[in-house]
């Protein structure tokens, strides 16, 4: 299957937030030039150019690049991934660095969506989260995006240290007041290697308790769906017609290209992940070596199982007939006794031709997935 989606990883941020373990370098804008050179080199193998329906610039923070370099980024990417008519082009942005000049570049090159790392509308919570922006930056960024007819998505974090349920409700209200088209919400996690992980280990930070985090998650689902958003994936909500088409490619087992440090691509059942260290990535690619660090070829059954699990993370679930057509496997026999067990336990349900999570199932879904996979 020829990919019709592409991801570009832009590994630059002004500063590294305490909870973040993404592939990026903070305060190393001197690496932007070599990065662009390496990216161009990596992209040169996409020959002939590959037309895409969705293109996603993630990071890091793509908007960390100054307008001139942002322009060159788009030029070299679009040269290899020309846009089909009606293509969706998303760019992640940090509220602190969204400005008119950068947005002009984005709209010039056909960007359709701005995904803003808002995280919260509470200055104290933003400080706890070690973010370098203030609530007013979010409002300004949304207005600028609107002015250029960009669809707006907001990322929100809940269960930050010390956060209350009421505080989180206020964040949801503030987010809805800006009338975004799309919202992604994440419970804060303490990933190994992050500053927060160490601080928690030393007892300086405490993670929210399970019950509170559960209440926050449920509150988000209730408020956002009541405001007319579809809860279409575990952590994603969209106004009708405003889902992120690019992310849907990931969740429905579609093929996609990916370039940049740490980027992962999936083409013909083969997954490849690039070197995660930005410096190594640049050095290797400019030395003419491969950017790829890991390769994995999935057999048909493993691919089907993966498709089942990630498909089920979408709340509308999977269409059994389509699943069979796509993978060659019958979902129910693939899931076997374990699947039947979860259906009996009302964590999964078959309705008409669809298999999907129930509300109870959604909340404990990570305990379901192991049963549907094989090592």
């Amino acid at each position: 299957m020829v990919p019709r989606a592409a991801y570009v990883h832009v590994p630059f941020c002004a500063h590294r937030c305490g909870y973040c373990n993404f592939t990026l370098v903070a305060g190393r804008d001197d690496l932007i030039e070599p990065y662009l050179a390496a990216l161009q080199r990596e992209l040169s193998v996409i020959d002939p150019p590959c037309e895409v329906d969705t293109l996603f610039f993630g990071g890091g923070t793509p908007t960390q690049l100054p307008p001139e370099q942002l322009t060159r980024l788009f030029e070299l990417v679009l040269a290899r991934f020309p846009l089909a008519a009606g293509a969706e082009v998303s760019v992640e942005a940090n509220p602190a660095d969204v400005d008119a000049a950068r947005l002009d570049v984005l709209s010039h090159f056909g960007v359709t969506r701005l995904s803003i790392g808002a995280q919260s509308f509470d200055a104290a919570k933003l400080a706890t989260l070690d973010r370098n922006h203030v609530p007013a930056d979010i409002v300004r960024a949304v207005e600028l995006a609107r002015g250029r007819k960009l669809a707006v998505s907001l990322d929100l974090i809940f269960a930050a240290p010390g956060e209350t349920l009421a505080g989180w409700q206020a964040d949801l209200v503030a987010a809805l007041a800006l009338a975004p088209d799309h919202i992604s919400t994440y419970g804060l996690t303490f990933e190994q290697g992050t500053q927060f992980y160490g601080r928690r280990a030393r007892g300086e930070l405490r993670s929210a308790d399970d019950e509170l985090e559960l209440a926050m998650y449920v509150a988000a689902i209730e408020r956002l769906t009541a405001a007319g958003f579809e809860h279409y994936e575990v952590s994603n909500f969209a106004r009708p017609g405003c889902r992120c088409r690019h992310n849907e490619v990931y969740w429905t087992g579609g093929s996609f290209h990916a370039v940049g440090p740490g980027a992962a691509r999936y083409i013909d059942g083969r997954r490849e992940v690039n070197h995660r260290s930005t410096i190594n990535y640049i050095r290797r690619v400019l030395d003419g070596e491969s950017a790829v660090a890991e390769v994995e070829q999935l057999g048909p059954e493993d691919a089907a199982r993966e498709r089942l699990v990630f498909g089920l993370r979408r709340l509308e679930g999977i269409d059994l007939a389509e699943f069979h057509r796509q993978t060659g496997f019958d979902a129910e026999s693939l899931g076997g006794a374990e699947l039947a067990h979860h259906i009996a336990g009302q964590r999964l349900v078959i309705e008409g031709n669809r298999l999907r999570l129930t509300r109870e199932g959604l909340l404990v879904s990570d305990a379901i997935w192991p049963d549907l996979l094989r090592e």
Partner: protein
Amino acid sequence: MPDCLHIRNFSIIAHIDHGKSTLADRFLEHTGTVQQREMGEQMLDDMALERQRGITIKARAVAMNYTHAGQEFELNLIDTPGHVDFHYEVSRSLACCEGAVLLVDAFQGVEAQTVANFYAAMQHNLMIVPVLNKVDLMHARPDEVIREMEQSLGIDPDDVLRVSGKTGLGIEDLIAAIIKRVPPPKGDPLAPLQAMVFDSHYDDYRGAITYMRLMNGTLRKGQKVKFLRSGRSHEALELGQFVPQRKPCDLLQAGQVGYLICNIKELGQVHIGDTVGVPSSTVADAVPGYQAPKRMVYCGLYPSDGQNFDELRDALTKLSINDPSFEFEPESSDALGFGFRCGFLGLLHMEIIQQRLEGESDLDLVQTAPNVTYHVRTTNGELLEIHNPQKVPEAGFIDEFLQPVVRVNFVLPVEVIGPVMKLCTDRRGVYVRTEYLSPTRAMLVYDLALAEVIYDMHDKLKSVTRGYGTMDYELLGYYPADLVRMDILVNGQKVDALSIICDRRDAEFRGRAVVKKLKQEISRHMFEVALQAAIGSRVVARETISAMRKNVTAKCYGGDITRKRKLWAKQREGKKRMKSIGSVDIPQKAFLAVLETGTENK
């Protein structure tokens, strides 16, 4: 070929870590048996596990030639293990010697195993050469320790040699003292062959290698020999001595220590304590001093996926070939399926066997908590030997429940006598006596249930005495006690592999600790899980694991998919390895939860 007058056979005995193997190195070096450039540390500890743990597990013999005062001598040294679990190795080594070098660490002083080994050597009528070792240590307290040796063991201070196994100081005088003090072996090279088997090990290529001490007669390569107890005759394919590797020779004579290789493919055919003679000999003179090793501790070993029963049996069989002190028999458990009940000399031995099993085969095992052997006299007069709590009959059929009691010798600094006595009384120990070894150190003797000693005595002693207390024990016998079987129930279903036998008065306390520990080990399920400890139908402790409410990963985009899938697939494998009881998944580690002593005090 040396005559008996020029042979000296001796063991090195001491408390664990007092430097036996290091001193053996100096012997090898000083006698030129091993060239200096080939010298390693603790050369005789050549098993992988010995090197890894830095302790001696198996006794090793080595023959050395040495010229003293113009005469050639053959010195046969046996390095012995210091840990109490392997004490039987010491006693069988002592039976082939005329002397024993008793080491005492110049800093640590006399300790529990020093006393135990000293008395064992006395029982064998050996000439004891007392040595104060590690005199190079900065904090050595030589005069005090010599006084301890005098007071506790009745050793004449003038007889004590001062040595450092590390620097080699005093080694020459020590060898001279051994030659002078240890009597040469008696025995007649011309008499009929009589050799005593004191050890054996299995070599994949050569089969059984028999270690012997020749009491009388001469053994020649190629001659026919008979193992008198088994009655089997064999050809002596190879004989020789350890230097320390095997060095073949053509004949061995009365007084010498060496090895014999026949074509024996099963170690089970070689009995420690047997006598090797000529085929015509009929009467085997009983060889004195051998105690068959006693299994003190039992536990269940099960293949974790319930599948590899045959593989586990093969692995256990292979191990028991090399270590006959370990035994096993098949058993089954509702919770764990088919496995084996295994008997060990002690906890260290158990740990070592388990480590070897894991190292030498790649089996994934579930181990149940260790227990001692109990005796039950039933109401119809039968005496049952119980190796597994499941085998305890219903209360109504028990006339008497007996448990092994050991006499424990503690050697400790006097200021901790109080706390250690409290430790013992808390465990219903019976005080026997106190002896002062010096103004600062004492030996405290208590009779305690072996189960108590195994349960947590060692750890408690180490913590109460900050590492300065040591203990040794020997079995006194079986005595009646108020014992019960405590069962553990998971959602109302009994988990047989978690049952334990304990004193009725401890049941509640132990039960609480166990269910609390289980609560930590068992992860949340989709439903509530009740954990109970019960005696018969009476519940003595309970805990509840509430149902899982939230378990959901938020982010999952292109780059996360592989990692997440792998993580979940791995969790599935982990779950498959757990034991499922009434649809509750119990991790392997939980089966040791019954060892939990709890943080609360008794």
